[in-house]
């Protein structure tokens, strides 16, 4: 098997600050390829380039929002960060320790510090386990508590996430969706992690319930000094909870900026299309809004377009650039560069355009 992507240019670091504080998590040129093998010859026919050179930092107490549409690689990035799926190449440094290449056994003591909250609160809780056992399981596995101490911790955790500790003998089906997601959060917090990867934590919930869980996540971060990688497709939720946002398209980060900056001054055409597509619950504004509509479909990550991966759907490429400019999009991959915009944007012709 060839080492994929060794000739690709590493994107410059996408970072939120210039001082010397070390990030909790530093991801550098992370790649995750899934081989497509022929069934007979066991030969690798092609690679799905799910994540192709992603770099970002997350600092203590910070929330990084990772947004993008289905198939852009945001969930795979989350899983590769946790080493649930070993990265193909690149580096994930958590509090100074390299995670890429660690075996499951080597990973185990570190799992305490990085936890994952799943999207579907119906599928991620074992229906045959009482809530007390679900929340206690990480503590039991890591041999951190037992007996009275374990019961006390479970009750504490339930209170922490806003659940009534007296319900600990109940089963998941006795809880509503929002309550189940709180159970998932309590389980993730049991080991006192420093980093939580939240993969679409509120997408399965009704809006009225969602608000409570978002408030809870906000509170927990402040009280416990947690860092979040918040993966979501709902941009209004991401804007609400994140300090910085990274926008992904087809396995690459195309734009990163502090949240307000990204929403006010998006410079990448994809970000602009994404923001302009958010339906606002405001009839008067909806009536007057101009939408940037994207043509076509997401290209296959098996065989992504050359140069800029977004060019096949880009309204600038199809409508605003001349042939010579287009050649650059076709031949040259745009790097995530500041380009006088003030924040990293992976577009040769990046220009700020307010769309919201």
């Amino acid at each position, binding site marked *: 098997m060839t080492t994929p992507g060794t000739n690709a240019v590493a994107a410059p670091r996408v970072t939120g600050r210039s001082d010397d504080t070390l990030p909790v998590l530093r991801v550098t040129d992370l790649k995750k390829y899934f081989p497509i093998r022929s069934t007979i010859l066991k030969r690798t026919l092609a690679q799905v380039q799910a994540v192709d050179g992603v770099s970002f930092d997350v600092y203590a107490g910070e929330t990084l929002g990772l947004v993008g549409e289905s198939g852009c690689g945001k969930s795979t990035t989350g899983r590769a960060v946790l080493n649930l799926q070993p990265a193909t190449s690149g580096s994930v440094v958590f509090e100074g320790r390299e995670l890429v290449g660690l075996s499951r056994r080597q990973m185990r003591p570190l799992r305490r510090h990085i936890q994952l909250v799943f999207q579907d609160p119906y599928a991620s809780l074992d229906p045959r386990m009482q809530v007390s056992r679900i929340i206690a399981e990480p503590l039991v596995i890591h041999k951190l508590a037992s007996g009275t101490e374990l019961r006390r911790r479970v009750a504490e955790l339930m209170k922490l996430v806003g659940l009534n500790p007296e319900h600990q003998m109940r089963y998941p089906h006795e809880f509503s969706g929002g309550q189940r997601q709180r159970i998932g959060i309590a389980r993730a917090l049991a080991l006192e992690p420093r980093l939580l990867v939240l993969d679409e934590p509120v997408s399965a919930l009704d809006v009225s319930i969602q608000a*409570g869980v978002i408030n809870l996540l906000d509170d927990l971060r402040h009280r416990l000094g947690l860092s979040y990688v918040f993966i979501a497709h709902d941009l209004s939720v991401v804007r609400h909870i994140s300090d910085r946002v990274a926008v992904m398209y087809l396995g690459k980060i195309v734009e990163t900026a502090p949240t307000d900056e990204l929403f006010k001054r998006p410079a990448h055409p994809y970000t602009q299309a994404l923001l302009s597509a958010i339906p606002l619950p405001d009839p008067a504004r909806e009536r007057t809004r101009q939408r940037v509509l994207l043509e076509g479909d997401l290209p296959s990550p098996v065989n992504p377009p050359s140069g800029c991966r977004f060019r096949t759907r880009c309204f600038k490429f199809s409508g605003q650039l001349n042939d010579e400019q287009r050649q650059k999009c076709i031949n040259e991959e745009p790097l995530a560069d500041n380009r006088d915009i003030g924040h990293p944007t992976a577009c040769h012709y990046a220009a700020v355009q307010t769309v919201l």
Partner: protein
Amino acid sequence: MTHAGQLPAEPVSVEFVSSAAREGAAGEVLLTVDDLNVWFGGRNGVHAVRGVSYEVRRGETLGIVGESGSGKSVTSMAVMGLLDKTARVTGSVQFKGSELLGLKDRGMSAVRGKKIAMIFQDPMTSLDPVYKIGQQIVETLRVHDKDISRKAARERAIDLLKIVGIPNPADRVDNYPHEFSGGMRQRVVIAIAMANNPDVIIADEPTTALDVTVQATVLEAIKAAQQETGAALVLITHDLGVIAGMAERVMVMYAGRAVEFGGVDDVFYRPRMPYTVGLLNSLPRLDVAEKERLTPILGTPPSLQNLPPGCPFGPRCPMHVAECNAAEPELRTVDGTMPHVAACIRAEELIGQDRYEAGQVFEATSADAGLAGELAAGALAADVSGASPDEPADEPPEPPVLGPPSGLGSPPVPHPPTDPTAPGHGAHE
């Protein structure tokens, strides 16, 4: 109208409970739903839709919004006659004045797909995977029009694909559903829905399974289909943003009933039912720079098998008073530029307030129902006894709260961070 002969001789007399835009909108009334009720599982079963009434006019878009289990989908399934035989449906559904409820399957088939078309949520299941999409559109055309030739039907199919924005329709017409992406498949479904120039299109969560940029293009396709056919559109969704951009009038559903109904501006800017107020305020705002804490609606929707006394929203309502338990409030006229009704005995108290002012009755809490019930009661003492009165009826009473709820800066952090003085916390830009 081919189906007219099969209709019952004596149409049920119609009384409008909420003939909202009757004066305001132009165009003929196409679909009238009156006092629609749906039960599942026998007389003691679930009363899923409880007296829903609306009408839609030609060219108009009516939005129906509600959370899971509010009965918004069942309502449209009942209108289309698609519910299982075990469901009991009462009330009246009239298309251009002729009754649809109680029609035999044959009579209904003449209306369904021709006069009233439907777009479902999931394009993966509403298209047949073993037929080319062209064949599926042609089938829809030929079922309702025996005279159309195969060739003409195929030409029409290509035209339809073009209208909904499928590139190279002449080639794509011979593709199978699996060769299309989700958004493209939904456009095919829209093309099928508009194939016979229907008078009414009912779209049930048409963009819920789609990404936001795809959603934008599919909504454009639905608008194009509506423009082309001049149909009335009933758009069912949980997404208030989609309603805001598409609908002229909105019906808000809760626990199987309409709880607020009015012009989209009235409902969105001047909601008069606390549930609508809560729903609008639970969304993160994109239009203001500073982030405010969100205000969830506490608790969960009631079980339809066991509704609370009086107002079904009562147990979750911050404006709840004892009188709310007396009887379920009727839809009453409130202020508005278009006819505007709300089912709340305290609706008048909200008059004069916009949605954010009205939203201040909701607590920006992070607690869950049980704990928050105590919060609302102001009983935050460490040892609270007695169950919260603000409990949804389907939940057993909440036992006393043992400690302060989370997230309000309460003193002992029961679960200390590894390093409470961790650097960088809150110091980012």
